[in-house]
């Protein structure tokens, strides 16, 4: 499904990462395979270290910390926020919405729309889409898009399929009206028939948590996890990405009437270096224009990886320059999404640690 907008812009991006950094080597003993094999996996996938929350830190804690930083630095005013959109797969509670909790903790005005969206790896583009739609309302001048996940708390530490790559974090993206001649193109696709490819089987109403769902079970590869944990069919997800993402980007560029060379950067979701290099090669995009360094430095914090790729790789530059960026996300749902737009010069584009 194609979307098109104009007169909207991103005015600032801040990413918030847990200060707790764990090296890959410190966790090798948790996995059933030999240390030598784990080190080969590290080289192939780009695992190195990841940021994960300590204790019971929640998505709202990371968001509140980041927003208070922006208020304190004079980069955002509370009273200017007309909508608070949170994309997360790890809400504080089933109810109420975590965006309402954030609004309450920060004392934001009541004349505001709070909205939680349940999306994961494709959630940055889905969140941007929602923000662009909201900015079409006369009463909404500024939208704060929050992307936050603490999914390390739902991944078994003895699951080498998922734990080495998982990361936690949050991003805050401020959106508002922009130049009318600035065209934005987006594309979204969904396939719920493959929902089992990435799932936390228990803990919802379909299969409530119980002592049985908390029991650790060994899979055919020696990974130990419970039904309360995230489980990923790595082969199926890899194949899905390689098959579906390149044609989506081709379609997006075609709708914009632009060749791939017109794009300065392809800021894609960051599952691992191997998958991204394969995508770049397939799309004939140089690896320098599709950064793949987020997992090795921070881990994969779901929808936070795209804004993190921008703050980490282009931070200062985006405060001075305007760049044409193609963003894409792909994963849980299954959902795959992309946005092509000019970004910058931004009022802020940085990273802070949550301690």
């Amino acid at each position, binding site marked *: 499904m194609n979307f098109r907008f104009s007169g909207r812009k991103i005015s600032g991006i801040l990413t918030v990462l847990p200060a707790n950094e764990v090296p890959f080597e410190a966790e090798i003993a948790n996995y059933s395979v030999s240390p030598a*094999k784990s080190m*080969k*996996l590290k080289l192939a996938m780009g695992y190195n270290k990841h940021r994960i929350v300590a204790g019971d830190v929640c998505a709202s804690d990371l968001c509140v910390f980041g927003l208070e930083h922006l208020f304190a630095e004079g980069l955002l005013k509370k009273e200017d926020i007309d909508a608070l959109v949170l994309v997360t797969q790890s809400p504080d509670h089933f109810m109420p919405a975590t965006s309402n909790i954030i609004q309450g903790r920060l004392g934001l005005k009541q004349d505001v729309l709070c909205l939680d969206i349940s999306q994961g790896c494709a959630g940055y583009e889905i969140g941007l889409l929602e923000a662009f739609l909201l900015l079409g309302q006369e009463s909404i001048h500024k939208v704060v898009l929050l992307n936050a996940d603490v999914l390390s708390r739902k991944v078994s530490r003895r699951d080498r399929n998922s734990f080495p790559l998982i990361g936690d974090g949050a991003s805050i993206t401020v959106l508002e009206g922009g130049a009318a001649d600035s065209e934005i193109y987006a594309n979204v696709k969904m396939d719920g028939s493959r929902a089992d490819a990435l799932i936390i089987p228990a803990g919802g109403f379909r299969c409530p948590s119980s002592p049985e769902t908390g029991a650790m079970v060994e899979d055919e590869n020696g990974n130990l996890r419970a039904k309360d944990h995230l489980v990923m069919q790595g082969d199926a997800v890899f*194949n899905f990405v*390689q098959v579906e993402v390149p044609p989506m980007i081709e379609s997006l560029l075609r709708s914009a009437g632009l060749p791939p060379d017109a794009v300065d950067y392809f800021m894609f979701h960051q599952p691992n270096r191997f998958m991204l290099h*394969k*995508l770049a*090669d397939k799309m004939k995009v140089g690896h320098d224009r599709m950064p793949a360094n987020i997992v090795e430095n921070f881990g994969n914090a779901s929808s936070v990886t795209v804004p993190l790729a921008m703050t980490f790789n282009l931070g200062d530059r985006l405060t001075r320059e305007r760049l044409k960026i193609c963003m894409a996300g792909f994963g849980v749902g299954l959902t795959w999404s992309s946005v092509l737009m000019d970004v910058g010069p931004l009022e802020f584009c940085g990273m802070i640690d949550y301690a």
Partner: protein
Amino acid sequence: MEAKILSILTGLRPEFDFTRSKDFIEDGMLDSFDIAALVVELDETYAISIDGVDIVPENFASLEAIKNLLVKNGARP
């Protein structure tokens, strides 16, 4: 080409004799992470980039299958 592939496979999983298996996947000699590591080594060795859509278990089930995959993706013996 087969000798080189065999050498890479043995380097990856030295505990297995790949000449004695008819299906590396069925026999549990290569899992998905081994395949990823194998692709990285094959890409470097043959200066190619194996197409992501070709990275499916059946293309790594035997020496013949891997050889066919390499040829399809532009490798020269």
